[in-house]
């Protein structure tokens, strides 16, 4: 990897922080638990890293580490999304009233 790649990576890093702040700061307290759970599933992207190390492993120790990382990552992704969906499903099961939530900006 050359310097330009590193610079790109750091640029992406910084911009992602700003996007994260911008997207989250408007979420009402009602949704904080599902949101935490939802962002928890987003970092399940780590499973992609686990797949890549599984692909690069050639020793037993490497396989072992990759296996544990795959179990962890798989749990994070699948469990995270499933449990978030379960929570949000309950929020949606209401009759469609006009949403009155003046505190949304807090």
């Amino acid at each position, binding site marked *: 990897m050359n310097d330009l790649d590193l610079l790109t990576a750091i640029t992406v890093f910084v911009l992602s922080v700003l996007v994260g702040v911008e997207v989250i700061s408007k979420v009402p307290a009602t949704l904080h638990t599902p949101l935490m759970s939802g962002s928890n599933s987003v970092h399940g992207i*780590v499973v992609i890293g686990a797949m890549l190390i599984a692909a690069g492993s050639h020793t037993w120790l490497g396989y072992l*580490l990759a296996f*544990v990382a795959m179990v*962890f*990552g798989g749990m*994070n992704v699948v469990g995270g999304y499933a449990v978030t969906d379960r929570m949000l499903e309950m929020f949606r099961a209401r009759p469609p009233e006009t949403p009155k939530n003046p505190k949304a900006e807090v």
Partner: protein
Amino acid sequence: MDTVSNAVHYVFLATAVCFVLGLHLMNHPRTARRGNALSAGGMAVAIAATVWLVIHEGTITTTGWLVLASGGLIGAALGLYAAREVRMTAMPQLVSVFNAVGGGAAALIAVNDLLQADDAAALGARVSLPGALDIVIGAVTFSGSLIAAGKLQGVVSGAPVVFPGARLLNVLLPASFVAGTVWLVLAPDSRTALYGLTAVALLFGVTMVLPIGGADMPVVIALLNAFTGSAVAMAGFVLNETALIVAGMLVSSSGGILTKLMANAMNRSVVNIVVGGFGTGDGVPTATGPGGAPAQVRQVSADDVAIQLAYARKVVFVPGYGLAAAQAQHELGDLAKLLTDHGVDVSYAVHPVAGRMPGHMNVLLAEANVPYTQLKEMDEVNPEFPQADVALVIGANDVTNPAARRPGNAISGMPILDVDKAKSVVVIKRSMGHGYAGIDNELYTGPRTGMFFTDAKRGLAELKAAVGEFVG
């Protein structure tokens, strides 16, 4: 980069867009579920693209495929099972466990990378620095989140655990992170540095969370969630995958914001929470236990309360963790419906930190089919308490204690619900036991307060039956 690799990275870009839009849709209850589905879809496509990339590169061995497939399937099955079976009250623990495994996976990636490098000494700071950071943050998150989950589940004592030298240890361990990180950066092939750093980080996760009281766990979980995001982003630097950097930092910054919102709701700084929990620092902790109940508590029965409720015009419910622990959200929903049908104006006052996680109470009440339009946040509901004929407190404690308005005690300055301003207050609680702050609740001994000593589930069921007789 060849064509396939290029294509895969365009897919990763699309995934990142899905994550951002998905989180954005979580701004509103109506669109939140779609947002989660969009985010999950983006994740699925990214995983499929990675499989394609792995096949295309062709370096993977048969054992590698077995490891990849079996590990992924086992993890997915475990996660799905846990997600399906968990009770809504145990949700914070489960999120914490999922967070732990995410951090653990991120740390393992860096450990593996440093072990596998053909010539680790030549890696350079470009890989070894983020690698070391990944190991530190990931391992701290892993052990810390498991302890946090244990505290919430009651496996580990919810009280702040303090042992001699704990403070000193919590200074020494981070200092050794710096030393270990520098060592690993200078000598990326040193196994001693690698294993030593991992062990110290795992230990620190434990010693960091143990002294924090159960009441602060929501903040801790949000903070650890942000940590995991950073660990994953560091793994992205190690593997040179921008997808991990984007997703990791999105989570990290959003987790940071949530942590701050939570800490603000408790009128405490994040540093203050991490450095020491309630009752650990100053003063003599008030004695707990059943003995010496204050004399001026007025006890009421289900029938007394039912009459008040049936003839009230406006009733505010104040649910707390006791409601969640007793799984009584459905009984409360039923009682509310009965009163609403009878023409009583019913609303719910939800403190931002009611339950064990930000917004946890809203989830529980949603499960009990309470329309979210009846749920009122603190600032909105506080001016309404003086008009409320009855405020019914179910298992909430510290967030209703008027002592918070005075300086000089464990909860001074914490924003509270102004329950004591209601015309009449009824508290359903099992005993006079203390909340997390470990101090007496002055609301319970107030002149307009009646205590209904019972389990939340049974008490609400009795109330519903009694109210049913009056209005039926």
